[in-house]
């Protein structure tokens, strides 16, 4: 037991400026280890739900609506080819939101693992970066699985459609960052079901995922333009159908980038407030 004698000095003393990436990597490793223990629970949402959704909406509903006028208003593609990239992006939003609500609040108030991290040399920036890096990995995993299911169904119109994975990840992060910041300020979970009911579900239904937003009343359309979901869906769809022009690409990326950047800045403030009070 003498080896554990904590008298020894001079162990890996952290340098004055500890790289954020190091802490981020350690936090990422922690989340990955936890995921190895709980991944079975996320099997349904990750793997089975895309299959079910694409089968029901793409094949079932698609065959029902695919006729002259509908195909024309969708730009000449089948409903399934129109819908699938939209769902790919929207799934990023849903995965990111569920991973940024309860798990973040729990890390502050239930098992307090963020407090445990902050008692070590890991910095607040490292904690936030590690959390978002982990969410990025999760989003890549779920988007890739979803994309492979799309390919299996034959719902991908062009090879560039693979970039829809990136669109899904960016859409996810545009929610993950601000929702993480919001959750860090919560002491109970009452707000989270409201977020799902009044924010995520309407965004899922009305951001162009299931039908072009031109179908929406004109007064509502500008609201859709402000949402990250609309831009993520448009991005994924544009890649898949090959309809993206350079300006559209830049606008979509810029809006998603603004949400991500603003969310990260807010998360840094919210984490500092929660950890240093």
């Amino acid at each position: 037991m003498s080896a554990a004698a904590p008298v020894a000095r001079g162990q890996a003393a952290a340098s004055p400026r500890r790289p954020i990436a190091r802490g981020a990597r350690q936090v990422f490793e922690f989340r990955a280890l936890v995921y190895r223990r709980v991944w079975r629970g996320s099997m349904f949402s990750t793997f089975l739900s895309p299959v079910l959704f694409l089968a029901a909406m793409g094949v079932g509903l698609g065959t029902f609506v695919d006729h002259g006028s509908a195909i024309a208003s969708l730009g000449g593609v089948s409903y399934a080819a129109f819908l699938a990239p939209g769902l790919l992006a929207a799934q990023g939003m849903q995965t990111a939101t569920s991973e940024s609500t309860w798990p973040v609040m729990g890390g502050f108030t239930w098992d307090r693992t963020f407090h445990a991290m902050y008692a070590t040399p890991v910095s607040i920036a490292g904690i936030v970066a590690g959390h978002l890096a982990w969410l990025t990995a999760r989003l890549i995993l779920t988007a890739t699985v979803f994309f492979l299911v799309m390919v299996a169904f034959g719902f991908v119109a062009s090879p560039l459609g693979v970039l829809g994975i990136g669109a899904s990840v960016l859409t996810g992060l545009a929610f993950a960052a601000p929702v993480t910041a919001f959750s860090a300020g919560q002491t109970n979970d009452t707000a989270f079901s409201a977020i799902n009911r009044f924010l995520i579900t309407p965004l899922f239904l009305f951001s162009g995922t299931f039908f072009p937003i031109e179908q929406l009343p004109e007064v509502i359309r500008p609201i859709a333009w402000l949402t990250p979901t609309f831009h993520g869906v448009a991005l994924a769809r544009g890649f898949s159908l090959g309809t993206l022009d350079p300006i559209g690409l830049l606008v979509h990326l810029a809006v998603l980038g603004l949400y991500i950047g603003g969310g990260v800045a807010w998360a840094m403030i919210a984490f500092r407030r929660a950890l240093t009070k």
Partner: protein
Amino acid sequence: MTTAQPIDAPNLPEPGPDRFGARASAALDGQAADGSPRESLIRARGLTKKFGQFMAVDAIDFDVAPGESFGFLGPNGAGKTSTMRMIGCVSPITAGELSVLGMDPRTDGARIKSRLGVVPQQDTLDMELTVRENLIIYGRYFDLSRREAGRRADELLEFVQLSDRAKDHVEPLSGGMKRRLTIARSLVNEPDLLLLDEPTTGLDPQARHLLWDRLYRLKQRGVTLVLTTHYMDEAEQLCDRLVIMDKARIVAVGSPRELIEQYSTREVLELRFPVGVQETLGSELDGLAERLERLPDRVLLYTDDGEAAAAAAHARGLRPETVLVRRSSLEDVFLRLTGRSLIE
């Protein structure tokens, strides 16, 4: 009428060349005042923490010497945890000076933290991981290799007697086991300074004694312990020196023995009268002891000779139901300094 002999009186070392007392008191007396650099692991001057308008810690001064075991004793809300969080570099100081391991928490937080072990008031264990994984992940935060973290995890689990639970999840462990795991985790970086915020609150006596034993072993190895507690027996067991905090300020400082000598008498005579009699007592008790305190159920007489005071009371015709002579304890000091009214 029964007379009980004192049974508590812990065998405290005599003042003088005891374990750390001499060095410890030097740290607080002379040299620090002239500004010369002293070998203090923690040095606080005018340390202040405010939350908005609420004064949590009000300009306190203290020094903790290497190898010392130092306690913050005080009722809830006295400012103990706020002080600990400032030392632990997680709560920025509002005003004053604080140096930990010779560094400034404002600029060297990460470096200080790399040499600290922290046992927070509420456990912060990860419930989804196993006992051993909790230690390894924590070691990784201190830049240990996986192999080294694993090696230390196994040693520490043995040290806190949890080796047989290594592969179990944390959730079903008892409170005492979780606390031991938290202490093991706080040692994974082989810290120079261990901060323990109410380490045994809520544990049963067996679990507390096991924890005290482990902490005492750490102390013998030269680890500096800083702990908060509101248990007097814990302070007497573990602390070479302690401060008593009340309402954000330090109200007394010294070794347990010194505090008892300074703020209490050698013995306490406790008299319990039949219901209704105590209220009728007036001046009959005056002059029997140096200090007298009336509690709802009994009267405490602070005196250096309890037996003599008991005899004197008997001679005055007082006929209490029970008479108890005991040694003064830290609890007497604590209650005298922080008052008997309930603090919520």
